[in-house]
């Protein structure tokens, strides 16, 4: 694929004389036109489906419904911070936030630790059949969260699981364990994906560095700890940020597992709380939840990027 490019390059470079020399003023204009064509579509869609919805959610979150008496006509009026006061008093919502934070504090390090371990093993001379392992570990990424939750729902089930000897004794879908059963599903889906990102970063390290280290007598362990891991830290930060964002968004897996487990209530995760509140329908409160959630996600991932003090994003 990449080998084909130099040929393209030479054919394009064949110079044709006389053109473009006197075209300087027109070039400026065509530059600006080209920029509009290149950037315009994305910015327009971004404005319509990112910026405006956020603005609208903020607007909606400042509204409140008022009624005259119990059965009087409902009118929507400006309510100031009414909804936000309700958000801060919604103990269900905060319980769900704490739940996903606990989930993330355990699941993200475990997942990324495994992904790093597998990537280092794939990059080491210890393994045979690397291509097979790479594909086998990555395959679950092709399984959507809903489908993964359905599959694992059956596998966890005390009666339908192929491992019913285990699942009859350990209540994977009970109130105590169900959060960690979901963590297992998310880990199962995403370890291989994160492994590949880290592995790609490992492959980009020039081999000369290792050779120099070997000449200095460094062991494989030392090379992994002191050279490889520091050099793939930007990739680790990138995967960590996306995992944190993913954790706070958790919805498909718990919502799907509700048909297997009674331990998952309608406000199990923040997004489930948003969905449930919107179904009431109480759009203003749901919008306020969304705003708080988006803001906390943004702040959390931003702070994480700042604290790690590396520039995962150029």
């Amino acid at each position, binding site marked *: 694929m990449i080998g084909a490019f130099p040929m393209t390059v030479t054919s*394009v470079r064949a110079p044709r004389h006389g053109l473009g020399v006197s075209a300087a003023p027109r070039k400026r204009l065509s530059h600006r036109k*080209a920029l509009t064509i*290149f950037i315009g579509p994305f*910015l327009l869609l971004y404005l319509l489906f990112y910026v405006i919805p956020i603005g609208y959610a903020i607007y909606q979150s400042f509204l409140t419904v008022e009624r005259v008496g119990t059965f009087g006509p409902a009118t929507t009026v400006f309510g100031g911070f009414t909804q936000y006061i309700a958000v801060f008093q919604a103990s269900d919502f905060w319980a769900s936030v704490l739940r996903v934070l606990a989930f993330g504090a355990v699941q993200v390090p475990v997942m990324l630790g495994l992904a790093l371990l597998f990537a280092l093993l794939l990059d080491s001379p210890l393994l045979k059949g690397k291509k097979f392992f790479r594909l086998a570990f990555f395959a679950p990424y092709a399984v959507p969260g809903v*489908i993964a939750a359905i599959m694992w729902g059956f596998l966890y089930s005390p009666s339908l699981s192929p491992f019913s000897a285990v699942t009859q004794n350990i209540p994977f879908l009970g109130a105590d364990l169900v959060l960690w059963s979901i963590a297992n599903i998310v880990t199962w889906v995403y370890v291989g994906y994160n492994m590949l990102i880290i592995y790609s970063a490992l492959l980009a390290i020039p081999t000369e560095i290792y050779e120099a280290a070997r000449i200095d007598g460094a062991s494989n362990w030392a090379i992994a700890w002191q050279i490889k891991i520091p050099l793939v830290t930007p990739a680790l930060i990138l995967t960590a*940020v996306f995992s944190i964002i993913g954790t*706070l*968004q958790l919805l498909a897996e718990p919502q799907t597992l509700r048909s297997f487990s009674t331990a998952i209530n309608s406000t199990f995760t923040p*997004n489930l709380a948003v969905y449930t509140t919107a179904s009431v329908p109480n*759009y203003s409160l749901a919008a306020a939840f969304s705003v708080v959630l988006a803001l906390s996600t943004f702040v959390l991932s931003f702070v994480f990027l700042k604290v790690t003090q590396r520039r995962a994003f150029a």
Partner: protein
Amino acid sequence: MSAPSLTRSSKAKGSQREPILSRSAAMLIMGVFTLYFLIPIWWLLVSSTKTQGQFTTTPALIFTPDAIPNFIDNISGLFAYNDGVFLKWILNSVLYAGAGALLGTVIASMCGYALAKYGFRGREAVFNLVLSGVLVPATALALPLFLIFSQVGLTNTFWAVFLPSIVSPFGVYLARIYAASSVPDELLEAARLDGSNEVRTFFTVATRLMAPALVTIFLFQFVAIWNNFFLPLIMLRDPSLFPVTLGLYSWNSAIGQNPELRSFVIIGAFVSIIPLIIAFLSLQRFWSGGLAAGSIK
């Protein structure tokens, strides 16, 4: 500059020196986790070759002698059920994800390319605006999108799911990184001297050099749309508009009232993951190179 290939031959010569103990330990770890990753998929494959009765009475991880005829029966039952609504769901998913990712890739790569290759006032501001989009969770947008679409009467339509899916801030980010490192300025200058206009230069010259990044953006956006759940869940009421994830979810939630759906959920889950697995395996050598670019910087 170019994407690294996924094998590194110069390292093979070291393998003789490794102690047998660490090699066995490494193989053991990878072997155990191979089982962890593949057994659920294996279970799904085996279960989709069983009749309703066999599902609970035969060993779950072993094929029965009549697996192949059962599989054919199950598949034809799945596609016939409820006037073939499952096929409709698959086609919907292909349309949402295929067309959405294709359009999204073109739009995002044009924007990323321009951010990398043109100096203009406000460039960093635009890039930072796009980057903050990467950090805003898409599901936080689902509810406000629903409220806006209901203002204009477009909820429960194809567009309600399709249009928001096109926007990929991460695609812009990846395209910018990749264009900056793989499209030389001299080449663009040469194309300009050749009289090629800017837009044509992008589509004929730059896109070829950016091919690994474009495949990566396309595939990962395809997966993101294919897996998207909250947006269709909140937007759609009409089952004929559902993507396959939402359709299977609705069947799965109805198993309690209608137990015959269980076998359709299982066989349907199996059928729905096949296209993605094939797409990833067959395009592997393209996207793995593009993936590297996003994380190196």
